[in-house]
């Protein structure tokens, strides 16, 4: 909401304001290791990307780290990921199980970065419902979609929602749709997706409900604050779960996907 206020005040003031490109003295910061790892519940490829931060001014393409050793441990044994030589590392056909704690260790030029997390359980989508609405200030006429599921009472749950409406994807890191059960624990959650456009009749709607742990949820909130600066928080790097100051996160995701065709 602060964004709206801010945008408005800028609009009001921009009638007299002036912009120009300036040179600022900026020391290039220290270079930090960035590890992006996403382990999916079930049998999937496990992909890890290791890089260094780049310059901010000038060439800002990522600098891959090609000589790292990346090892996943599930409490029973170590699994070493295969390096593609371009900063990408992979473990093919790995079965990740809910309730198991996984530890990811990345060794890079003598530095070791470790993150761990417990794979959450899948929370299944119960129904995708939809309701026709007339055009208003906030939306065109069409079907507002809603995701419905039963929140498990025994645990704190953290969700990320992604939606595909007839090939248009919503819920990337520019528009993260995040939800926790802080006020709703153990309830049936019926969450209308005001954040996505309305669907038309006969559109194919797919929703993905991803459960994650609190650390990953905090990281995603940090990513949201970073991308949508101006929400009041001071600019900062999202806090991930790696030690030794590595950026990025070891995300453990348990997802359920459902589809529906909008029938008028």
């Amino acid at each position, binding site marked *: *909401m*602060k964004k*709206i*206020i*801010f945008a*408005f*005040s*800028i*609009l*009001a*003031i921009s*009638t*007299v*304001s*002036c*912009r120009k*490109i*300036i*040179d*600022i003295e*900026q020391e*290039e*910061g*220290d*270079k*930090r290791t960035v590890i*992006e790892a996403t382990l999916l519940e079930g049998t999937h490829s496990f992909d890890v990307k290791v*890089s260094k*931060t*780049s310059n*901010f*001014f*000038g*060439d*800002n*393409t990522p600098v891959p780290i090609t000589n790292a050793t990346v090892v996943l441990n599930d409490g029973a044994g170590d699994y070493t990921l295969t390096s593609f030589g371009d900063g990408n590392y992979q473990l093919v056909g790995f079965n990740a199980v809910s309730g198991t704690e996984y530890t990811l260790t990345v060794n890079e030029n003598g530095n070791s970065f470790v993150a761990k997390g417990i794979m959450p359980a899948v929370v299944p989508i119960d129904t995708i419902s939809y309701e026709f609405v007339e055009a*208003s*200030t*906030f939306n065109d006429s069409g079907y507002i979609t809603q995701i419905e599921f039963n929140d498990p009472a025994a645990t704190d749950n953290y969700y990320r929602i992604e939606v595909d409406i007839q090939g248009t994807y919503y819920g*990337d*890191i520019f528009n993260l749709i995040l939800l926790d059960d802080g006020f709703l624990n153990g309830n049936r959650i019926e969450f*209308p997706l005001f954040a996505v456009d309305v669907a038309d009749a006969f559109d194919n709607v797919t929703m993905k409900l991803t459960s994650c742990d609190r650390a990953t949820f*905090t990281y995603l*909130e*940090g*990513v949201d*604050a*970073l*991308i949508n600066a*101006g*929400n*009041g*928080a*001071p*600019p*900062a*790097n*999202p*806090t991930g779960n790696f030690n030794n100051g590595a*950026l990025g996160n070891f995300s453990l995701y348990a997802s359920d996907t459902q589809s529906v065709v909008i029938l008028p």
Partner: protein
Amino acid sequence: MANAQQYTISGTLKDASNGEDLIGATVKVKELPTVGAVSNVYGFFSLTLEKGNYTLIFTSLGYEPVEKKIQLSANQRFDIELAEQSTKLKEFEVTGEIEDANVSSTEMSIEKLDPKSIEAIPVLLGEKDIVKTFTLMPGIKSGGEGNGGFFVRGGGVDQNLILLDEAVVYNASHLLGFFSVFNSDAIKDVSLYKGGMPAEYGGRGSSVMDITMKDGNSKKFGASGGLGVISSRLTLEGPIVKDKGSFVVSGRRSYADLFLKLSPDEDLRDSKLYFYDLNLKANYKINDKNRVYLSGYFGRDVLGVGETFGFNWGNATGTLRWNHLFSDKLFSNTSLILSNYDYEFKIGSDEESFGFKASILDYNIKQDFSYFLNEKNTIKFGLNMIYHTFDPGELFSSISGFNPINLNDRLATENAVYLQNEQKVSELFSIQYGLRYSFFNYLGNNDSIFDYNEAGNTTNSRYYNRHETAKFYGGFEPRLAAKYMLSEVSSLKASYNRNYQYIHLLSNATASSPTDSWVPSSNNVKPQIIDQIALGYFRNFKKNAYEFSVEGYYKNLQNQIDYKDGADLFLNGEVERELTFGSGIAYGAEFYLKKRKGAFTGWLSYTYSRSLRKFDAINNGEYYPARQDLIHDISAVGIYKFNEKWTASASWVYTTGLAVTYPSGGYQIEGVNVPYYSGRNQSRFPDYHRMDVGVTWYNKKTDKFESNWNFSIYNVYGRENTFSINFIDDESNPGQTVAEQTALFKIIPSVTYNFKF
């Protein structure tokens, strides 16, 4: 001698032309050069002397002295009216002060202004503004255009206690910080304490800005006002019963939205953008022992785009006061005070809308006594109780299926008792010592209160009934100020003070906003504790024509509050989860040279200062600059009076740029380029500097009517000072990032017409 009969002279000092109480006027005794009394904020004085014959001299700066020969053999009362000096050299003077007050008074680290004295200083859009003028003084700094509030000696905006007739004003900014909420036409006197606060003040860590509204003319009806580029003002005042009671009503409204009507853009044409202020005050003297005052302030800012977006915020305050003389030595004031600040915004039309509102409301009772024991000791004591209601926010909507959210009110009481003595130990040495004990109860409201650990996880929760104490804090606040006269024209002063601050403003880190929220101390948030020591040397030259001072200070700040990295703030009922706590230090040296007599008046000030913070969770626990760590600060103000008709003025300011957080690298998340920050506040905005000039033309003054025209140019050499910096893709070189600066103003000329009859 010890048993000689003593008698008390007491009374009030007023301006003969309009009956306004004179604050800080003096009563001197010709036969006893070191003995005297000073009138308080209600114009009251009391002086106890041994039986004898004396010549009393009543004076105030800018007024003709009045002499009275008395035979003191009984208590006597004098209600004296002083006439303004007829040789009206409109110098830049701090009225109401004896000429060498800066050297001879015990107080240090204090700045005083009255609106009359600032009328010639050029300002943005001709809107004379007492808060903006204070930022030209040493140790008081502005965050630049578009930043509301001010910083005193490295403290935050929320560490300033801003009082309007004793009522706290929570947000002193209009139009996102371009103007203050104080209409100069309604104000009599302002004192700003940067340190060495007397024990009667408390509740904020850095400073006290004590603003007294005019009482209104008790002699005759009058009107004054002004027409400006951005706003117009009108003040009406007059007696309720001649010489017994008076009232003043002062209003101001801006019409910035008229500019928008000229815009080719339809959305802008339909926009609202204005503010207004209304000050009201009335007083009535029941008899020589009792007088009552009622004052109020209402102000609001309104922004809107057609029917689809509305945003407004404002303060309301009310003060009911009763002055009572228990004896001619014991003066009492009782105040009932109300302060409110709220904001609301709404999106959508009436049938289909949602919006958000939040507020803070205080009920406050104050009882203050002044006991004028003898000519060497003045004792003050009193107590204060505040009941706070914080409404953190309510999301409302007329859309079905949209669940309203109403966060529970947070309740607290804030209380204090104090005792202070100002003692003239000898001709050369005087000392003011006091102790304040403040305590704070964070109260339940029929809900559960949670404890959080450093990671923000809930560790405990407990249910509290409404008004059940959930957390108690209290502490002693010693206050000490001493003066030693080195010679007739120079003095050395020192002070120490400790201040507790129990309520805190969680402010946006990048720019202050009307939606910044106040939160109480609680089980998770400790009160801020700020200690300051200061030392100063004061020297006047050429019969007080020049004032010079240098002050050094050191502050230690405990329990400072900041957001954790990546905090989520909007409509967060558990905002305390997002906070982290640390400490800070601030230190500096302030140099000040002022010329106060003659055709040319003005001042030059230079401040070197640092303000650093230390939080475990930020910058690896190392000290880093606070946003307001403005290392070098220079202000120069010059006013030249050519003759009775023409006055010209100029001011120039220079400040180190604000400390800000820039990215120092980049990386990718899910394939998207994002910035990497190596630390908070490690970079700087470009330095800020600006020159303003103005000319005032006074029409011939008659008994019935006076007026003047003021022409000013803000930012005369068109410096583009930084409001914000954005990092964008270089159009001529895609893939490369460049810094784009937004500046709000280049050259802004303005004209204002002021009148009084």
